[in-house]
């Protein structure tokens, strides 16, 4: 106990010294620097929260820092208390990894100007609050290309979580990828209003396959839809992490969230005093998004997928490039123009080829 308290005081003292006396060049030793992380799910979800925790472990390993995490934090009244607790116990940088932590993060950040905060997937920033996200839609486009080649019916079933731009842009990227190969391709979607609900996800997958889809994709976190497809001898995609072990004969690929590099970089910046509030939104080119091994497909499809991945990485292929029509056939992106990040981030319309309305 007494040892713990002493190390804490040392760390706090070092942090204070680094903050107030930068000219003396004193820095907190790595082992004394603590990073905090809060997750909305359990780290055992094998999806979203699991990948964030992998990032945390990688950052600690690379920098020799220590870290703390709190899992299963509800996105309501409790988040503020937990974030405050982390800020109060000597954590120099705090990652809040779910959209619903946004306002709580800003509220606490106001009271702790010396602590750096990083909020994933949000849009509100402050001097000591940065935001970061991954361009998940890049992976969806590649999945769409593969789906067009692998689906006999040309119809894919797609489970949406919550109808926010993040999910809508993924759905649109998927159908654009499909239609780049097969202009008649269709995407049947259903929203289940949850990020993680294996039972509901499995039910939705069954319903979509019963309606004529012969391939599964999803923007929810459990392996359940992939497993349903596998049970029927069909193929599908993983989500957030590599789910090949759940369906060794059915997973074509999976978009993997890769926070390792980002967390390492930001913790280091906070430690060195070079941290700045930014909005980071990166994808395949930086390695924040990675594709799981292309499997269970013929070699020519594999080659096509790898070429597509390369084209996105090098910037040769822009995904939201006109002409793009909305569901009703009206022009959304004119020929020759490409959507800017602002328009992508606020996307609230479904592209031609997607069946079913957005929930209203």
């Amino acid at each position, binding site marked *: *106990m007494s040892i713990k308290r002493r190390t804490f005081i040392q760390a706090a003292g070092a942090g204070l010294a680094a903050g107030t006396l930068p000219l003396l060049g004193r820095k907190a030793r790595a082992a004394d620097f603590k990073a*905090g992380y809060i997750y909305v799910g*359990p*780290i055992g979800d094998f999806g979203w929260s699991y990948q964030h925790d992998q990032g945390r472990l990688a950052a600690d390993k690379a920098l020799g820092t220590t870290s*703390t*995490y*709190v*899992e*299963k934090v*509800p*996105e*309501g*009244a*409790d988040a*503020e*208390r*937990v974030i*405050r*607790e*982390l800020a*109060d*116990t000597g954590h120099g940088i705090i990652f809040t990894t779910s*959209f*619903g932590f946004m*306002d709580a993060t800003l509220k606490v950040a106001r009271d702790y100007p010396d602590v750096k905060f990083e909020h994933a997937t949000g*849009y509100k920033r402050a001097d000591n609050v940065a935001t970061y996200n991954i361009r998940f839609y890049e992976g969806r486009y590649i999945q769409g290309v593969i789906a067009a080649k692998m689906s006999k019916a040309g119809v894919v079933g797609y489970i949406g979580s*919550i*109808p*926010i*731009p993040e999910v*809508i842009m993924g759905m649109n990227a998927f159908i654009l990828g499909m239609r780049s190969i097969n202009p008649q391709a269709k995407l049947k979607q259903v929203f289940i*209003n949850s990020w993680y609900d294996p039972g509901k996800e499995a039910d939705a997958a069954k319903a979509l396959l019963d309606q004529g889809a012969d391939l599964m994709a999803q923007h929810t976190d459990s392996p359940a839809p992939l497993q349903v497809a596998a049970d029927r001898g069909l193929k599908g995609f993983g989500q957030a992490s590599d789910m090949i072990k759940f369906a060794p004969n059915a997973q074509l690929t999976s978009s993997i969230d890769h926070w390792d590099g980002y967390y390492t970089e930001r913790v280091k910046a906070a430690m060195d005093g070079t941290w700045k509030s930014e909005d980071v939104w990166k994808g395949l080119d930086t390695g924040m998004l990675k594709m799981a091994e292309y499997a269970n497909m013929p070699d020519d499809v594999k080659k096509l997928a790898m070429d597509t991945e390369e084209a996105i990485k090098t910037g040769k292929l822009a995904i939201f490039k006109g002409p793009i029509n909305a569901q009703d056939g009206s022009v959304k992106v004119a020929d020759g123009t490409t959507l800017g990040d602002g328009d992508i*981030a*606020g996307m*609230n319309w479904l592209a031609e080829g997607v069946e079913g309305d957005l*929930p*209203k």
Partner: protein
Amino acid sequence: MRLEIIPRGARSQVWTYASPLLAIALTLATTLIIFLLLGKEPLEALRVMWIDPLLTKRGFSELFVKAAPLIMIGVGLSLGFRANIWNIGAEGQYVMGAIFATGVALYFYDVESFPIWLLMIPAGILGGMFWGAIPALLKTRFNASEILTSLMLTYVAKLVLLYLVVGPWKDPDGYGFPQSRLLTSAASSPHLIPGTRIHVGVVAALIVVAIGWFLLSKSLLGFKLKVAGQAPRAAAYAGFSTKSLTWLSLLVGGGLAGLAGMFEIAGPIGQLTPALPTGYGFTAIIVAFLGRLHPVGVLFGGLVLALSYLGGEKAQIALGLPAAVTMINQGILLFYLLACDLLIRYRISLPTRKVA
């Protein structure tokens, strides 16, 4: 060999009230062993979980912030449980109270000069009462079990909530995220102590305890509820109407759950989101029984359960234990509480051998 459970006859007054304390002691002893098996210093772990959260002004205040909704709902439920009216749907009534209160807040969104949160209080109570009235009607009219109807209405309430935040009440500046606008400061229940999140709802919870205690101990109504629960036939002979007690239990239980929902929205949460229901309505059932269905007991029961949440977070931060610690603690506590209650009312004995 078979064990028999035999009623003890007269119930021990002392043990009725001592049993929750015994259950807490046994829970601590059991978690001690679990910590030992997990390779943690057991006494330090206990201290981190149960004492550390109370040591700072903020931690202490957070205990009351967390406990306030549990206490409000728990008092309402305990009145009904006394009369054997099993309202399992407080979670839905809590959500409905929050919805009604948010409706008022959004309707008066532009009003800044008047404390809108005062209007949200009756709205929240009404919302909860409305959702409690449905099982009451179904019970008194069709004799439908309130256990089932109130529980199922919880899911309906959550769907209504989802409909509103995805549809008509969606924040126009929220990038399509399913949530209402942030409530204005006029629609927020004021903070009472600077540097803490103690808000008017915490005081309201204490007032609810006082009124509950008065109703139960000093009024004819409390007497009726107790008689109806302990001796239904005596209550019938005395001319106490079961129907009106059913209505009353569900309306009071619903109203208080709705009030709790209103204060969560107007206090620590600050907007209507799909993340609102976190199981307070169900946890409050444990709180009610831990508190011996007595309002003052519920006050302590609520604080103990709230402490188990705060301690669970501390254990994650300070000791690196998984979040499951909180649920395990609550589960063990409920297990011992039920076991102690059983053993107070019954004794277990080997069957007496009969001579053939």
